[in-house]
């Protein structure tokens, strides 16, 4: 066994390639090459922008999920949460027209409402998990059902549609460009960057990892476990509300089928990106790539006739299983080295 002390003289390699970290990126690049070979239209500017824009919803939610999962939790309620937030946003904006008109004020009011709901819903999930001492899986399974039924109730079983005038004002948030890129891509990028900073560069991120690794150790190391865990759900809620804000102008409506299975897509993106499901190791960059991989698969299936588009779910499922299977190899080798 060599000694760290003796190694200090040797210069550290400036940059090391971590297979586990680069794996998802390699997979995405291979997927893109495959897409281009099957149909050169894949690489068109329009199509690539389309992929990025569509990745934004799941991607933003998945960034939040990365925190929850890294800290050893899980949030199954995000899809339903997105649906109920869209519904309430639409109701709020529609009913605010009388007072504020159908201008920017109303849209801002709707967005504010979304953020408050997202933070609140996340806070409730967090509080029930930490102070209520109920497993995250159970809590969020419960709130998933509650949120889903609430949106159905608000929409009276049908669809809530945004007032036509407001749609015109709100439209650019999804369809508009800034410096040549659609707004959702900017939001996604900002969320990812802030998320990366939070997870990798702040004490908060370190505490999330510590709690996910071993809650007991975190507690004995002066980490306020309950507060940090609750914070992860609040961040998750905020991410859902941001995703909803850019989602609502896309269709201008909300119904019981809004955001169905988003929670599973978000978790899939997180896992494909290399974050460990049982916590203790999280990668925001991986999550972003995970979300892009999921959208790219769907896109390629749309562009080619090779596999039926109806098999999109099959492809995504296979990718998830293969990704985790590939990640397991090196993990197990390290674990077996323990004495």
């Amino acid at each position: 066994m060599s000694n760290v002390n003796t190694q200090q003289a040797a210069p550290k390699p400036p940059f090391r390639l971590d297979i586990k970290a680069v794996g998802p990126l390699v997979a995405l690049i291979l997927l893109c090459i495959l897409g281009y070979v099957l149909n050169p239209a894949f690489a068109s500017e329009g199509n690539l922008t389309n992929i990025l824009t569509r990745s934004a919803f799941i991607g933003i939610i998945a960034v939040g999920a990365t925190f929850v999962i890294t800290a050893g939790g899980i949030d199954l309620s995000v899809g339903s949460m997105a649906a109920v937030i869209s519904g309430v946003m639409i109701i709020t904006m529609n009913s605010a027209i009388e007072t504020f008109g159908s201008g920017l004020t109303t849209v801002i009011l709707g967005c504010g409402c979304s953020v408050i709901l997202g933070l609140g819903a996340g806070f409730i999930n967090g509080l029930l998990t930490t102070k209520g001492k109920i497993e995250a899986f159970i809590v969020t399974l419960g709130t998933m059902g509650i949120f889903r039924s609430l949106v159905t109730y608000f929409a009276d079983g049908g669809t809530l549609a945004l007032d036509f005038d407001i749609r015109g004002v709100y439209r650019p948030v999804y369809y508009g460009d800034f410096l040549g890129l659609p707004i959702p891509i900017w939001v996604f990028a900002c969320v990812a960057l802030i998320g990366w900073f939070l997870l990798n560069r702040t004490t908060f991120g370190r505490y999330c990892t510590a709690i996910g690794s071993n809650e007991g150790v975190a507690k004995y190391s002066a980490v306020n476990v309950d507060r940090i865990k609750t914070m992860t759900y609040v961040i998750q809620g905020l991410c859902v509300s941001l995703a909803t804000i850019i989602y609502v102008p896309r269709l201008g409506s909300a119904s019981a089928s809004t955001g169905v299975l988003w929670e599973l897509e978000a978790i899939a993106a997180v896992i494909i990106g290399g974050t460990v499901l049982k916590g203790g190791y999280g990668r925001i960059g991986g999550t972003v790539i995970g979300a892009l991989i999921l959208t790219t698969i769907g896109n390629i299936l749309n562009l080619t006739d090779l596999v039926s588009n109806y098999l999109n779910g099959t492809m995504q499922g296979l990718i998830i299983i293969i990704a985790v299977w590939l990640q397991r190899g090196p993990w197990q080798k390290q674990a077996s080295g323990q004495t």
Partner: protein
Amino acid sequence: MLNTEGFRAPVLEATNISKSFGTVPVLFSLSMDLRPGEVHALIGENGAGKSTFMKVLAGFHQPTKGRIKLDGQEIALPPNGEAEALGVVLIHQELNLAEQMTVEENVFLGRELSRFGVLDRAKMRETVQGYLDQVGLTISPTDRVSDLSIAEKQMVEIVKAISRNARVLVMDEPTAVLTEAETEMFFEQVRRLKDSGVSIMFVSHKLAEVEAISDRVTVLRDGHWITTAATTDLNTETMAQLMVGRELSDLFPPMNEVDVDARIMLGVENLNTASCKDISFDLKRGEILGFSGLVGSGRSALFEAIVGLDPILSGQIIYEGRAFKPTSVAKARDSGIVYLTKDRKDKGLLLNQQMQPNLTLLSLAKFAGALGVDWKAEAEALARATRRFDIRAKTEDSLVGNLSGGNQQKLLLAKVMEAEPKVLIVDEPTRGIDVGTKQQIYHFLAALALEGVSIIVISSEMPEIIGMSHRVIVMREGEIAGELSGNDINEQEIMRYAAGLKSRSMA
């Protein structure tokens, strides 16, 4: 009786066993034999190689060198407990039972009896009942394991072993978690097994028990074979001498007296918690105060309350002359009181992380600036800590779980020292580590006290308490049983208080 010298050929015989982990040698050419119907104790200090040797004998580790003979035949024992099929069974200290299943289900786990594909419960129950009667255990085969006492669980493990026709039982500290009455019951079973011809090898730190139950004793020290002798030729005193093999003064640094004028850093008055009653004591600047007592006497619980991990019901704490309310570990840390847990693997270190995040976790706020956690400062702290505490790892980014116990413990000590404590509470600071590392830790703690840090040492290892402490407080059943200082600090006095033979009111 079969315990007289060499009447029968040994069941299990190990010759010149050496074992290395990587390049680190742990066992050096050990030999021993186990005769039929013999109880053979394996003793030695922590880190002497007892557990490793036992695992070699039960096939869990393969020896690097040396031969093992079973019934006179040379054999390579199969790994992962498959040696059970050959009649060699290792009972781990952490029992291996499915808590939510019944006794009968546990005994037959993995080789259930069935008829026409349906479990034959009646037959299994009958068989298990037979075994239970054989060892004289008064539980029912249908009892749920989680409802049993620890001693009973241990007996279930033994029944499991008998049902697999075990001829050699290897047990790792079987009495460590048992009460006196349970130990007696356990010994009763051991005698029965022995009479039926089963050979038993066990590790124990309780020398009085070794004297009471074993036929022969093998002593290991630092991975070397020291002696094997008939128990009748030894007493606890000679056993202890053989185990340590050197003057204790080598191990411990010279003791420096505490300045008589040193101010009181920590004063605890009439403190009550869920498991501690009416605790009062003072701790001076630069003093090392030992806390002794039996396992479960409330020592850890007391100090977990003092650092804010457990609620305080009544009483008060005076810290640096002012009332101190420990509301959280973070507050205690910020005030300068830190606690080093005895549970290194579950409460001390993140085993699946690298050294750097582990080192700074307790004091992370110190490393955080406006632009987030300063990785460079952290790396420098790690470099300092590896030098100061002599932490040896293969590479800087080795996972902590892959470090040896001693290096983990030094990292844990480095971690709490990053918080720059004024009062350092160390709970079992040398549990499960080798003698060399122990010595390093003792010298480090003594130097720290000399710098003016007040230290509380909680330990179940008597020599450690005696060798390190200026004063010793003995706890019993959540209360302070007595306080010793100067020449009164010796094993007999401590034991008297700890066992309840003497108490403060009597003194």
